[in-house]
């Protein structure tokens, strides 16, 4: 798929964003208010929360917000396109549909990441939480995002066949907030075990270790963060490829691509 086509995908999402500007503004306000509210609650609950606690929450909250938004948008591509009556035209582009969806996903990744990180840096600046970000942190973030994309593709594949997955997405959204340690690190051993199976958990822990505890690449390896994150990302990416390919094939067999 050409760079031109990817560029077109990105421009298309920006133009649509202009058309749905109210939704975007509401989303930004919710993001800021959500973080301030959470910090206030944690501060009230624990006097030791302080600056480090707030930064820890900001790392988890921002990573969750970006990854979960990308995941949800990718999962909804098929149903949204079917509803707008353009899904079949994407399948007629003369490229493998997975590649077209990847182009679309790249648009979501860039737009959500830019919006999320800009806001996070503004919040960190205003609250005195600014911290230098290392290239290692950037790699950890990208790997975490890739895992989320993988799960997004898996859900997109299911959407092509089963159409409505709103309920499942809602449940997943809740799980990603509460069980990945996005808001606060998970300490309960049973929950911690379950959390490691989800996407984001490894990434958020590793990002906290890197940014808050200044753990370098070697220390992250010794702590098992790299291995855990890589395996987790690989599993979700594989799941994404397998379920998307299956869903696409099945939808064409059943003749339900355009249904919604």
């Amino acid at each position, binding site marked *: 798929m*050409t760079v*031109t*086509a990817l*560029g*077109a*995908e990105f*421009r*298309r999402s920006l*133009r*649509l964003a202009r*058309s*749905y500007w109210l939704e975007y503004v509401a989303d930004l306000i919710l993001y800021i208010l959500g973080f301030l509210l959470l910090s206030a609650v944690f501060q009230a609950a624990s006097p030791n929360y302080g600056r480090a606690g707030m930064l820890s929450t900001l790392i988890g909250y921002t990573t969750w917000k970006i990854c979960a938004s990308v995941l949800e948008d990718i999962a909804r591509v098929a149903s949204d396109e079917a509803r*707008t*009556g*353009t899904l*079949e*035209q*994407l*399948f*007629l*582009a*003369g*490229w*493998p549909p997975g590649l*077209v969806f990847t182009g679309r996903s790249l648009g979501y990744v860039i737009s959500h990441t830019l919006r999320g990180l800009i806001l996070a840096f503004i919040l960190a600046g205003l609250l005195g939480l600014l911290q230098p970000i290392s290239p290692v942190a950037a790699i950890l973030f990208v790997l975490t995002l890739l895992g989320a994309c993988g799960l997004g593709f898996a859900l997109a594949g299911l959407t092509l066949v089963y159409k409505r997955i709103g309920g499942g997405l809602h449940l997943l959204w809740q799980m990603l907030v509460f069980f990945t340690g996005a808001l606060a690190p998970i300490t309960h051993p049973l929950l911690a075990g379950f959390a490691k199976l989800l996407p984001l958990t490894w990434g958020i822990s590793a990002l906290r270790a890197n940014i808050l505890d200044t753990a370098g690449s070697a220390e992250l390896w010794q702590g098992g963060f790299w291995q855990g994150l890589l395996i987790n990302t690989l599993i979700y990416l594989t799941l994404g490829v397998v379920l998307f390919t299956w869903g696409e*094939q099945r939808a*064409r*067999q*059943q*003749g339900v*691509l*355009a249904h919604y």
Partner: protein
Amino acid sequence: MSIPDQPAIRVEHLIKSYSPDRPNAVDGINFEIAKATIFGLLGPNGAGKTTTIKMILGLVLPSSGSVHLAGFDMSKERNRALRHAGAILEGSRNVYWRLSARTNLEYFGALRGLKGKSCTQRIEEVLELVELADRADEEVRYLSRGMQQKVALATAILHDPDVLLLDEPTLGLDVQAARTIEKVIRQFVTQHGKTVVLTTHQMPLAERLSDRIFLIDKGKRIVEGPTREVIARFGGQRETMEIVLAGEVSPLILGRLQLEFTGLSATTNEEKTILSWIDSGSQKEFLRLQSKLDAAGLTILQAGRRAATLEEVFVQLTSHPEKWTR
């Protein structure tokens, strides 16, 4: 480039079954479409036209059989084949309503691999062609139904495909918009040597445009051939009797007449009713119809014979499809 010396489309033993409990949606059809022709794929609702179009485009997978598009086997080289095809699909918007016509064209052009100046130039060309240049920067949702369909057509021909598949392209359009689309389709074939597959319920449009027609019902082929030949074959021997009656004919009387005289159709307004009937040409049958009309108290103003239309042939052939299905 499409593969030379190959038909634009070749369909062989195509079958689609959505469920073993239901009859096949498409049941073993075969056809070849030569380059630079307009191929009318016609049939009543549920005949299997849309499924056939979608199987040609690889949007629905056949249960068995094969499709070659622009010389490429759809089961093996789908993406290469699709680079030679454009389509408007019935029941879909086909374009983004929240973007302008120009932005839609830029987006789909880029997705089809067009870029830079050549893309901008081509966009201007197609906008002119579909008579939308002056409305190109308005969001599609604010355009009329006809203009929206023109945007869809512009998008479908933007990358200069060899084959264009149009599923009900003029459905719900006013006369002007329908004529523009008809003009573009004709130009696309006659001036550029492209191929068009057209499905429509508007028989006059199909008759005017199609070089060949393929009539399908319940997934099976009823008849195929050059449009003129099909009309001559099924309508020519049985000329159409046109009878003009004074005033309206009640639906009850009309229903009884249609039961008795197969292929009888009527158009009516307050002043007169025109009965069209592809008859056997026998005087006896005409006299029988005349006596029925007299008995119903209907006054014949005028009666005469004219050549049959595709619509009349269509009605005749689809009234008893089992007679013609092979």
